């Protein structure tokens, strides 16, 4: 598997990139995406009308890839499909490290011409051992060196999560939405029709990549399921692998055919594959992000017993139902814990059996923290969950003349000190517009929050199952 590292290293960590066929019609998006690229950027364009626009971006243009005097590590191709074979031929001759075809219109169109052209480029690339990514994709995102799929992606700093996506949209969404939730990408790849390199190749590469600690995948189909299974089984022992399979319904598989020319596959078999390998199954981008967040921000536990603290009575009922439904347990606490509560807890309008309804104790920061400290100390509890209701927090802050800051600071300290996972659900209620800001305040203190009971509960249960499987 080490071979895959030397095979794909240049493509994932290029020092020079050539963009073939960028044009005004696309607002020179590929060249613009490279505005912060740390290596050399070249353009290849034969259309004279496009040259002033490329010049304005201060990128040197060549008429052919082969005319570029230096080595080219990575090539971005945005030419019309009929020109693709010629570009692939040049890439082979130029001995590039990898080429990604943004160009689409191949087998996914289910037309004779599209299928024929796909066959031609596939055969050429395979025969020459060319690292062809796609076609019909967005290619590689490596934030540390400023190699982007979209101009609004971050650069300079990366994170620990490798993402492999058959869809370009989800590659970009994952990076952007993930970043808003405290999840940054090490390297990601959108790989479209996967005619030469497939998900297994990328997974094997990221498995060896030291920056990558967690691997997320959005897959519409695999070319060689057997190989995928064998690799996944081995890799999932070393790094958490999350799999989100698109096209799990008959209707959805019709869409994967026209999107990335992927064949229908049985959802039952995919479930078995994921379970058997000890990978983590997720069913949406939200679940992907939530579960990775739980892996990154919550301390590992194999225990299913949660201690729940909600800010009001109704929420205390619903949070309990939700966590129980997700597969977690909400046990009664020890007698020792109840004795501790009895010394300070205001029970008029509140309760502390587990779940806790701490509404009458909100005014005192000390009371809030004592509640969750007791949950953390209780031997019957494996994870501590606290609901932060934005409306109540705002009112509390206003009435006792304080900011959120004292509370958040106290929570952040506990997150570090507790030996158990400490999960915060930020319930925005009617104050959605403030939620983003508060989420960021929490994140600045190293506290990652979940936007609903459902999402927090599911994510926690998934990682507990993961740690149980691998007996961490």
């Amino acid at each position, binding site marked *: 598997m080490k071979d895959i590292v030397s095979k794909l290293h240049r493509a994932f960590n290029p020092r020079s990139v050539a963009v073939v066929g960028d044009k005004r019609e696309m607002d020179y998006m590929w060249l613009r995406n490279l505005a912060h690229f740390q290596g050399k950027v070249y353009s290849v364009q034969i259309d004279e009308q496009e040259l002033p626009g490329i010049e304005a971006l201060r990128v040197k243009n060549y008429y052919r890839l082969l005319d570029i005097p230096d080595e080219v590590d990575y090539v971005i191709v945005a030419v019309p499909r009929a020109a693709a074979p010629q570009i692939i031929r040049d890439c082979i001759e130029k001995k590039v490290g990898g080429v990604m075809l943004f160009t689409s219109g191949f087998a996914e169109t289910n037309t004779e011409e599209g299928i024929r052209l796909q066959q031609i480029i596939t055969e050429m690339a395979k025969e020459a051992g060319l690292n062809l990514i796609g076609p019909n994709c967005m290619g590689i995102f490596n934030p540390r060196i400023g190699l982007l799929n979209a101009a609004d992606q971050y650069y300079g700093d990366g994170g620990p999560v490798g993402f492999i996506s058959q869809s370009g949209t989800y590659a970009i969404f994952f990076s952007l939405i993930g970043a808003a939730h405290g999840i940054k990408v090490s390297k990601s790849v959108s790989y479209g029709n996967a005619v030469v390199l497939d998900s297994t190749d990328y997974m094997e590469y990221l498995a060896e990549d030291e920056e990558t600690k967690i691997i997320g995948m959005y897959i519409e*189909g*695999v070319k*060689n*399921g*057997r190989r*995928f*299974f064998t690799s996944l089984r081995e890799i999932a022992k070393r790094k958490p692998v999350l799999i989100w399979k698109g096209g799990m319904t008959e209707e959805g598989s019709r869409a994967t055919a026209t999107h990335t020319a992927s*064949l229908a*596959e*049985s959802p*039952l*078999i995919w*479930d*078995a*594959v994921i*379970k*058997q390998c000890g990978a983590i199954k997720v069913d949406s981008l939200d679940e992907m992000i939530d579960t990775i967040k739980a892996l990154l921000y919550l301390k590992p536990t194999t225990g299913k017993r949660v201690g729940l603290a909600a800010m009001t009575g109704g929420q205390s009922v619903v949070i309990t139902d939700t966590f129980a439904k997700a597969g977690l347990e909400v046990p009664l606490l020890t007698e020792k814990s109840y004795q501790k509560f009895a010394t300070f807890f205001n029970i008029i309008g509140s309760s502390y059996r587990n779940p806790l309804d701490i509404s009458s104790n909100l005014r005192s920061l000390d009371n809030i923290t004592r509640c969750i400290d007791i949950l953390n100390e209780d031997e019957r509890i494996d994870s501590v969950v606290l609901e932060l209701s934005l409306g109540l927090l705002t009112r509390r802050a206003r009435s006792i003349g304080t900011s959120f800051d004292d509370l958040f600071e106290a929570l952040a300290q506990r997150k570090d000190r507790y030996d158990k996972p400490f999960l915060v659900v930020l319930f925005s209620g009617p104050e959605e517009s403030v939620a983003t800001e508060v989420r960021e305040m929490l994140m600045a203190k190293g506290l990652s929050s979940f936007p609903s009971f459902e999402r927090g509960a599911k994510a926690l249960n998934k990682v507990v199952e993961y740690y149980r499987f691998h007996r961490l």
Partner: protein
Amino acid sequence: MAAMVVAALYMENSRQLRDREGEKFMSVDEIIGTARKEGRSYLTELESKQILKEAGVNTTEIRLARSKEEAISLSKEIGFPVAMKIVSPDVLHKTDAGGVKLNLNSEQEVAKAFDDIISSIKQHEPKAKIDGVAVQNMARPGTEVIIGMHKDPQFGPVLMFGLGGILVEVLKDVSFRIVPLTKRDAQEMIREIKGYPILEGYRGQEPANIGVLEDLLLKVSDFVEQRPEMKELDINPIFAYSDGAVAVDARVILESD
């Protein structure tokens, strides 16, 4: 209960059953080779059970009798009660044609069953070529489970486990794992089905020995790995007991050459 009895007696068209003298140990290669030579894409029940035995799977006994006397001596050898069934390539609906007799407890009953089967077939299907009558031991009824294997176009051989009868047919209460199975896979795929409490012995029924079933899954997984010539395998039903399990019927479909 009726379903179990019918299943226990359900036997495939066993054209290639050998007579006692001709019956000899055949390797899995030979069995598959013979089927291929005869242009068959499937193994008979007898052949399927022979190769399963090679894989370490416990199966019911099934032998071919070409005469009434042979049927009697085979049934004594196998032990009463036995079931008998016409073996003919031309009789498709064996029960309808009077070609199946169950629960035969004595030599007299076996002799009569043999005559009844032959005369009934001659009456219903006068042109049918008759190879003989299969004699099979009646397995003691147990909890019915099934193990199947099919080849997924993407992931290759996949094992299926489920409870037999209507639970698999109507409720699709089955679990899947990709071959090769680990011990954990075998444990989980049994516990994963909704009907698992039935295997544990629901309402005083005899519980199934889960360890035996796990072992069975692992043996089948090993065997499937060693035998890529098999395209499909259907062991249905298996009777699961508190002290063991027995494959009552089995069918193998071969890959085309």
